[in-house]
């Protein structure tokens, strides 16, 4: 008996020791551990569990689990501990308490030696902070996504190889597509950039941007043309930055459509160029006009002076008629100059409407007028291969072409007989029928260096290297308006002194 007691006392102390060790282990665990019977009565709990409701362990023994943590008289819906009792297997799940704490709970059924379930061990972890962080993250992601999607600017995220991995709806709008996944995502940056083949850079554009971003670690702003998926090109202003998304480095592009601004700039630039050109032209014409008219007045003035001198002194009277002719000629030149300046201004300031015109009649009328006003000169005008009728698209300025060419042929001719041959022919170029007119004269000819320049007065020619008259500038401008061409050759190739051949080509109207 004594031995039995002694034996009992021995087991008892061992048992106590184990109990103490078990309690020590369970108490040192930071998770909540609650042992309860099948009616959810708490049989044992660790200090962490009691601390979670600010009570002592002793106070909670015998209490209902749902009453302690949920302040309720009913079993919690979806309680994993209850579920583990029902199905007889460990179960887990999340439960939120009325005051807003969230626990991750695992329930382990406890069986007796016969396998009958006699209770459960509940192991719970307070995951409130984790859940809050997760919630914050989701909200932050939502906020970011919301900002991303509601941005009026296109935002695109590229990986460092230049592939688009994400973009917002504005990007679809910018590129005229709703199907971002199939039309945009996954494309390389180079597929968006609408550069001309001739401007193709040696280094990949994206590589260039990436290198600069990495070097400067600052945002990079630039403008570039983009291919629209529906065709056409738009202009964009981009702000590129290196960003970190998670552990990955990406490039974010914020892109704004500046096509309208770009077009407005181009229009402004063009109109500024046009305005400057017009200003320069006016300035040039003003200069030429004042110079030429000054010369004309000088010639008239000198002729009048000589006339008076001859008359006063009754000398060289036979030359007075010649002086009067000079005065008349100078007046004609002045009138012609004024008319040409006016015509040039008309051509450059408005769009001239063209209509079908017959040119033979116009030409003959001009020839008749020339002979009438040049009575003092002997003029012989011949027309070779004269067609019955020839039509071109022209307007009221057509006579000015013939008038200027014929007047020049007479004026710049020192022969006693002015000979002008007008040759007609037809040529076909690129399937277009042209009527070709050649005005061949026996005048003083045109220097080789001057053959192109004589048509360019009023353009870029230096003021001090030009001669008198704006006639050929006007002629060229009218002909170009008619989609024609004019150039000059020597009458005898290589010897300009024998005279000139002004050649004109007009598209023929059938």
């Amino acid at each position, binding site marked *: 008996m004594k031995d039995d007691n002694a034996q009992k006392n021995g087991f008892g102390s061992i048992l106590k020791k184990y109990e103490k060790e078990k309690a020590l282990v369970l108490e040192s665990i930071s998770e909540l551990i609650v042992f309860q019977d099948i009616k959810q009565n708490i049989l044992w709990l660790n200090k962490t569990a009691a601390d979670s409701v600010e009570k002592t362990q002793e106070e909670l023994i015998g209490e209902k689990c749902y009453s302690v943590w949920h302040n309720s008289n009913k079993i919690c819906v979806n309680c994993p501990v209850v579920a583990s009792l029902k199905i007889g297997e460990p179960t887990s799940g999340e439960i939120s308490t009325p005051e807003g704490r969230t626990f991750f709970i695992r329930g382990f059924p406890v069986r007796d030696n016969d396998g009958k379930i006699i209770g459960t061990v509940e192991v719970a972890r307070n995951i409130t902070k984790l859940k809050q962080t997760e919630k914050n993250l989701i909200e932050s992601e939502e906020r970011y996504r919301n900002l991303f999607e509601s941005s009026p600017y296109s935002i695109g995220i590229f990986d460092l190889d230049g592939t688009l991995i994400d973009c917002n709806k504005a990007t679809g709008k910018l590129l005229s597509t709703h199907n971002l996944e199939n039309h945009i995502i996954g494309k390389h940056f180079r597929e968006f950039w609408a550069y001309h083949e001739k401007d193709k850079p040696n280094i990949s554009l994206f590589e260039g941007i990436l290198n600069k971003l990495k070097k400067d670690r600052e945002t990079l702003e630039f403008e570039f043309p983009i291919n629209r998926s529906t065709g056409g090109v738009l202009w964009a202003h981009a702000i590129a930055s290196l960003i970190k998304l998670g552990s990955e480095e990406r490039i974010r592009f914020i892109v704004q459509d500046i096509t309208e601004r770009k077009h407005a700039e181009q229009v402004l630039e063009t109109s500024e160029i046009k305005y400057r050109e017009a200003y320069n032209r006016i300035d040039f014409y003003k200069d030429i006009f004042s110079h030429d008219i000054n010369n004309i007045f000088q010639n008239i003035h000198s002729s009048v002076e000589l006339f008076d001198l001859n008359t006063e002194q009754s000398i060289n009277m036979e030359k007075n008629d*010649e002086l009067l002719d000079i005065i008349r000629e100078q007046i004609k030149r002045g009138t012609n100059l004024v008319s040409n300046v006016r015509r040039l201004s008309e051509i450059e300031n408005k769009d001239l409407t063209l209509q079908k015109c017959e040119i033979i009649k116009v030409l003959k009328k001009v020839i008749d007028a020339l002979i009438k006003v040049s009575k003092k000169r002997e003029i012989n005008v011949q027309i070779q291969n004269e067609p019955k009728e020839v039509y071109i698209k022209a307007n009221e300025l057509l006579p000015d072409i013939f008038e200027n060419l014929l007047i020049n042929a007479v004026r710049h001719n020192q022969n006693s007989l002015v000979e002008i041959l007008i040759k007609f022919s037809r040529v076909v170029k690129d399937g277009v029928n042209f009527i070709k007119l050649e005005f061949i004269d026996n005048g003083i000819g045109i220097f080789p260096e001057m053959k192109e320049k004589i048509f360019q007065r009023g353009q870029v020619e230096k003021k001090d290297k030009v001669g008198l008259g704006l006639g050929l500038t006007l002629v060229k401008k009218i002909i170009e308006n008619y989609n024609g061409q004019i150039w000059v050759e020597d009458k005898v190739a290589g010897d300009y002194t024998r005279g000139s051949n002004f050649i004109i080509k007009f598209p023929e109207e059938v």
Partner: protein
Amino acid sequence: MMISTFGFTVVGKANNGKEAIEKYNALTNKPDVILMDHRMPVQNGIDTSIILLKLKKPPKIIFISADKSVKTRALALKGLTFIEKPFSVTALHDEIIKVLGKS
């Protein structure tokens, strides 16, 4: 006509500066004076005068122009005189006489 009225003989006329130099060099009987315009095709009066004034025996040049800026440039060349347009024929006559008197 203006020149011949005063009894001077015109030995040559040129339509531009380049032709003027060619003609001047080709003449056996060189002119006593050249009346030089400025605005001419191919080569202007200033450039032509520069070349002529560099000759071993430079000609006398009366430069005639209405351009005020040209007057300064022309007179800076030294060795020529200048008449501003518009001028009277008697002024030209007097200038020719003056220039010839200097020789």
